[in-house]
């Protein structure tokens, strides 16, 4: 009812997106329901892990390499911030409130939620062909000139073409695959390598990283890389058009490409999960 009510106004004020106001056309999905749900669960988990992770680091903002490190040993580097424990020599004359308890509870519980969400997504990605069809760069794109052109258009914050609303560009594909198959597994590994019980069963998890403090330092750097990805990801969404990209990831709907663009006509509306 509300849909039909908004057709006239949408059609009259925004002719460019007129097709989106016609229900039959907007049923088709830019992102499948599973991708959308796991995306937003991951987003929530990411912020919970980031905030609790920062709180955990504040109790000892010193980093080391090797097996051990404490206030009496040299550091690899220190964060120039005050600590939540008064024994840590930070150079600040005050101590922040201790938030470590709930931060740790939240961090580990969220890690579980993220692990299950990630497993669901990865299994779906392989079974449905999501990775192969949407994320693996097509052979034609894998050339240095194509890569260079993509980089240059990104660096100039060029608004992507309309067709890109229906598919990922080369840089997106590479960075998403890197996040999914390199950064997330590595952040889980380095996290587990800090667990005294886990490494009692799987000592190689920490030995391969060069020690428990090395694992902690690497965990910090992988987290930084993930935060960097998040920042670029959000900036790019603004460049591409915040509302259209948000709508696509929330409702699954995106503006139908005009005739002559890359959308495959044979895909039945309403049943296609992903653009081939």
């Amino acid at each position: 009812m509300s849909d039909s009510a908004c057709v006239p106004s949408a059609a009259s004020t925004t002719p460019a997106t007129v097709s989106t106001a016609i229900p039959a056309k907007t049923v088709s999905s830019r992102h499948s329901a599973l991708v959308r749900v796991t995306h937003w669960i991951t987003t929530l988990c990411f912020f919970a892990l980031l905030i609790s992770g920062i709180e955990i680091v504040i109790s000892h903002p010193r980093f080391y390499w090797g097996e051990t490190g404490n206030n009496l040993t040299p550091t690899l580097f220190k964060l120039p911030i005050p600590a939540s424990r008064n024994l840590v020599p930070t150079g600040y004359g005050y101590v922040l409130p201790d938030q470590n308890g709930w931060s740790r509870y939240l961090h580990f519980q969220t890690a579980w939620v993220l692990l299950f969400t990630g497993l669901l997504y990865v299994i779906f990605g392989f079974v449905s062909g999501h990775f192969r069809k949407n994320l693996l760069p097509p052979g034609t794109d894998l050339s240095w000139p194509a890569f260079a052109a993509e980089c240059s258009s990104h660096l100039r914050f060029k608004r992507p073409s309309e067709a890109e609303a229906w598919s990922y560009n080369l840089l997106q594909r590479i960075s998403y695959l890197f996040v999914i198959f390199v950064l997330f597994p590595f952040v889980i590994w380095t996290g587990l390598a800090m667990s005294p019980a886990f490494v009692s069963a799987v000592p190689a998890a920490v030995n391969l990283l060069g020690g428990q403090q090395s694992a902690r330092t690497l965990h910090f750097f992988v987290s930084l890389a993930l935060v960097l990805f998040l920042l670029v990801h959000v900036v790019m969404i603004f460049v591409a058009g915040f509302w259209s990209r948000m709508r696509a990831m929330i409702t699954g709907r995106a503006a139908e490409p005009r005739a002559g663009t890359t959308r495959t006509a044979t895909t039945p509306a309403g049943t296609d999960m992903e653009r081939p």
Partner: protein
Amino acid sequence: MSEPSSRDLSRRKLITTGIAAAAGVAGLGVAARLAQKHGLVPPDHGGLYGLGETLTYASQRLLTRHSFAREFSRSQISKPPFPNELGPLPDQFKRLQAGGFADWRLSIDGMVARPAAFSLDQLKSYPSRSQITMVQCEEGWSYIAEWIGVPLSHVLDAVGVLPQARYVVYFSIEPFWWESIDMADALHPQTFLAYGMNGDSLPVGNGGPLRLRVPRQLGYKSVKFITHMTVTDNLKGFGKGLGSASPEAGYSWYAGI
């Protein structure tokens, strides 16, 4: 494709999702009962973070029941050993310290056949063991030391733990400092009543004269200045019933992470 078919599809999807959700809830119920039966539910399983705690504890109990904490070479021992900050110790401790800890006692009661109190000399008369393991604080720092003592299992054998026992609760001379571990950790060969460190007696700064070492968990489970232990099958009667002082202060009971 016409509209009705996609509506059918979504109805079918809805029914499938409903059945899956119902199966999931029923499955969780069965899993919860099985976990409770096999001792895979931690005492702080209630509340907002209970799910995460239970998943961690249950999965690690299945994975690590018999695994050994990493041991290190003598050259990896941290020099100097790191003594964490100590609160003001009670007068009772100072009196015992003045007497060279000759009157220090570890009493063990609860579900044991022969409750007893051990002096340090008695504990030292048992076969001593040593291990070079890491103390890892939840704050982020760590150190490696050689710990000398008697495995807790040896002392528990001496008092005769009853078969229904499930936890060992242990208390420090420091007021409000108490912890507990399950029998898998209590009987683990690396769980020590440590009275020595790096070839010497255990310094007060590191928990001397007697500290429990639980090297498969974070440092706060290795309580310093141990004076009393109770063997039990239920943690409900201790403090707020969350298993130890840590959950009461906002930290998880199981600290294997």
